[in-house]
């Protein structure tokens, strides 16, 4: 037994299971997000249920099984009854219902239709045979027949009649709608296009701001800086800049960029609009600038890494041919290290796309009436507030009274965000891989 302990076998086992646990947890997390995120838009079948003998059967969508809380051992189903015909209920209380297995009718009606309306409501009803040019005839659970004007109907399908292939087509169609449409006035419905667009515009603007500074600083650190205390200090401040909590950067952005810089800009260029602020309020430009400051070290570190990997012989060869240091750097070193810079940039973009906390302070809103880029002069509106995927996720999860929808919606948004970020990271990884191979060939 002593030998067992001394040879370290328990530690090997513990560390191996720690690794397994870490990877397992992350794997489980990714699987959870993927599976829940993909579920949200899948066309589920509709079921029928009848609460009492006297009432008409109703249509609903099974959400999940729940165990009874009253101590009796019976299975309950949580059913989504859809929105009402009149208007969307602001409270989700009427929408969900717990039913017992006996109240659930076995057959799935073929004529059950699911109607997606333009205002974000989802109706479950029975399709009626009469079809007119301007209206869609439905029978609701209470038995009344309603004509729904076609211009209110975004999409409709018969979930119980769909083949697997049709379901897939519908699913893709719904995803397209989700990614390209704007949110509706009803929370938790509609698409997320403005959020995706806002994220991309902000991140690109940030990239434009951060690239020159990051690359020049890395060139300074690797090519020009001497080995002295000043360089040491600059390096330390790069590390520190990387370690500043993002929300502190947001606070700095709000207090300095927005209130001090923006306020001065307003006084200088837009005095006629005061006291209504133009740049003295959180907006796209300040968000991009704050994130540029936040991601500067990412670009510096990645670029410097690339510069360090470039064989010294290349520089010496250039010097030997009579080139100045500037020529060596700009014509020999930088072109060859360009993929490393691109890697840094991609990593910076990936980091920026996932940040939410600083953006809450410097310009993100839960719904922006206008996109930051449109057809009106000057086309790019730097002072506008914008929507952001990460913040949209937070908002959809926490501000929506309907938790059932919120949870599955949030997973879907999270999946989109995660895919974006992981793709960026993956491309940076592959780029770096390629670069390494190239340098190995040169060597």
């Amino acid at each position, binding site marked *: 037994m002593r030998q*067992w302990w001394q*040879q*370290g*076998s328990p530690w*090997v*086992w513990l*560390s*191996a*299971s*720690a*690794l*397994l*646990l*870490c*990877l397992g947890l*992350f794997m489980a*997390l990714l699987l*959870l*997000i993927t599976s829940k995120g993909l579920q949200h838009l899948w066309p589920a079948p509709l079921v029928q249920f009848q609460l009492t003998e006297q009432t008409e059967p109703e249509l609903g969508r099974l959400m999940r099984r729940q165990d009874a809380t009253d101590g009796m051992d019976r299975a309950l189903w949580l059913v989504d009854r859809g929105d009402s015909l009149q208007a969307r209920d602001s409270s989700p209380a009427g929408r969900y219902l717990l039913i017992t297995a006996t109240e659930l009718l076995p057959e799935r009606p073929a004529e059950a239709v699911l109607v997606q309306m333009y205002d974000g409501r989802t109706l479950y009803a029975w399709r009626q045979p009469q079809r007119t040019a301007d209206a869609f005839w439905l029978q609701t659970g209470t038995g009344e027949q309603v004509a729904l004007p076609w211009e209110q109907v975004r999409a409709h399908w018969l979930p119980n009649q769909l083949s697997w292939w049709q379901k897939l087509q519908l699913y893709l169609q719904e995803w397209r709608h989700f990614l390209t449409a704007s949110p509706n006035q009803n929370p938790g419905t509609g698409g997320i296009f403005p959020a995706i667009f806002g994220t991309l515009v902000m991140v690109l603007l940030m990239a434009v701001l951060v690239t020159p500074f990051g690359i*020049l*600083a890395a*060139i*300074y650190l690797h090519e*020009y800086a001497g080995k002295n205390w*000043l360089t040491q200090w*600059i390096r330390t*401040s790069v*590390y*520190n*800049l990387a*370690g500043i*909590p*993002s*929300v*502190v950067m*947001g*606070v*700095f952005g*709000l*207090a300095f960029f927005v209130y001090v810089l923006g306020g001065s800009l307003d006084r200088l260029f837009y005095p006629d609009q005061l006291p209504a602020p133009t740049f003295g309020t959180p907006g796209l430009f300040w968000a991009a600038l704050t994130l540029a*400051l936040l991601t500067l070290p990412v670009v*510096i570190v990645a670029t410097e890494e690339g510069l360090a990997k470039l064989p010294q012989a290349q520089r010496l060869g250039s010097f030997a041919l009579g080139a100045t240091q*500037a*020529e060596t750097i700009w014509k020999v070193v930088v072109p060859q290290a360009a993929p490393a810079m691109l890697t840094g940039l991609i990593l910076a973009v*990936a980091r920026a*796309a*996932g*940040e*939410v*906390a600083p953006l809450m*302070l410097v310009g993100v809103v839960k719904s922006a009436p206008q996109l930051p880029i449109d057809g009106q002069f000057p086309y790019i509106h730097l002072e506008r507030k914008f929507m952001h995927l990460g913040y949209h*996720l937070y908002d959809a*999860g926490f501000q929506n009274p309907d*938790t059932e929808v919120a*949870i599955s919606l949030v997973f879907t948004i*999270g999946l989109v965000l*995660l895919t974006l*970020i992981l793709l960026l990271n*993956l491309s940076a*990884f592959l780029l770096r891989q390629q670069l390494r191979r190239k340098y190995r060939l040169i060597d």
Partner: protein
Amino acid sequence: MQARHYFDKISRWSVTLVGYGILLAFAFIFLFLIWQVWPLFQAGSISPVASPDTEPEWHSLYQADTGQQAELHLDNGLQERVVLQRDGAIRWYLQQDESWQLQLRDQLTMAPLSDAVLLPGSRTLLLADGSAQVQSWFRLHQQLIARPGISVSDTPLLALIPVSSSSFFSLHPGLLQLHQVDSARLLAELRLPSDRLQHLQLSDDRQWLRLDWQSGTSNWYQIQWQHPSVSFTQLWLPVHYEGRREPAYVWQTAAAADDASPKLSLVPLTIGTLKAAWYAMLFATPLAILAAVYTACYLPERWRYRVKASMEMLESMPTVILGFIAAFLLAPWLEQQLLLFFMLLLLVPSLVLLSSAVWYCWRQQRQQQAEQPGWFVLLIPLLLAVWLAYIGTPWLEQWWFDGSLLLWLGERGIDYQQRNALIIGMAMGLAVIPSIFSLTEDVVSQVPPSLAQGVLALGASRWQALSSMVLPVAAPGILAAVLLGLGRALGETMILIMATGNTPLLGFDPFTGMRSLTASLSLEMPEAAVSSSHFKVLLLAALLLLVLTFFINTLVSVLRQRIRQRYQQL
């Protein structure tokens, strides 16, 4: 030739400028925040002015009276009235339905009363008895509660003059002092040109002071006291606020009325941040370090590369997703399966150790070297632990905890909140694991292999070589990794906003939530009025976080520098 020369020069200058710019930018963030919070700690002042630019609305606060009444009648504007006798007998009336009801009657033991005021809009009563201490009492229901006395000048007190719900003037011969009640602090002082004050008036916005003398002349003064409710005492020490039985650390910013001063103690927020970071590190450090050491030393090269790459990718996992999962899936699950969680915590390591021993003995018997097991062998104790915990929990809960662990805890006075430190520990732990893992893996795998080979040649096992040679060499690097993780945990925001409950609480209890500095910053900053005390205190909180992470990151940077040198020497 000339052009090339200039191009070289310009390139050097501009690049150097940007390089220095990084240092300047970082220093600027620091200096800007310091400059912004500086006014918080500036003393107030009352300075004479010729006369205000525009005549403000004046409020008369004090008028010299001739005789002393036997009884003092005081009013606080909240339909409450206090009648005080010179011997300390006190009656407190409330107005109810047009009539005055006696709410409280008490006899204070004190020297004969010289003056008393009831602060407007508050229930605080200030009593002066000729000493250099002004007593402060407030009414809580039907009780008078004493607060710390306020030291005033030891020259004879002529009058107490109420200013706001938390400040007052004390008038002495030739001296006027402005005091803050909550922190018992002297805000500002004014030497008076004459003793014969007839009339004291204050402007509506409390910026201007007008003194009329008995000689018929008047003087105007400007009062500067931007942040009366912020001081070191109020930020970091317990303060006895009105309406509470004892001094406490309070973070309460919602000041509905203008008069109510915000209660800005940074202690609960700092403790919240530290608590969250502590539980996250408790979860993340052992897992990340053990996993990294295993990856660096035991995994085959190909797998090592893959694991490392995927961990680096997970480092950029948006924390907003983690926070959401923690708040909406993990928290409800843990509330129902708390005992299962603890069983897993107990069973997983013990079963792993047990199976390690079994494996070792089995190998010994078959005269084989006890190597590290394959991953499928490892899965056995893990799955077994999960299965056992799953089977055993309901039984244990029934038998030991009377059916419900939460009720059992509740009976013992332990409060369980759904969003608590355990949730944060797991969610934020997951967020910091990749950073600790990456750096640890780097430093451990870069240790020169010759070190371990020497020990291995002497017949030691791989783990013995690792623990006796490799880990001590890499120790500063591992410390750097842990500190890096700590820095990240201290600055994390979204998980804390979503899964802590955001109630400012004291203490390190694992079953309660917290409110962190970062959550307060991102939730309150957009709503705080610029240049209000609240805004400045939030900036102070940001500065505090900055300083904290600055120390940690500088230490990390130094340690990394050192370990690089050490490797080069080896």
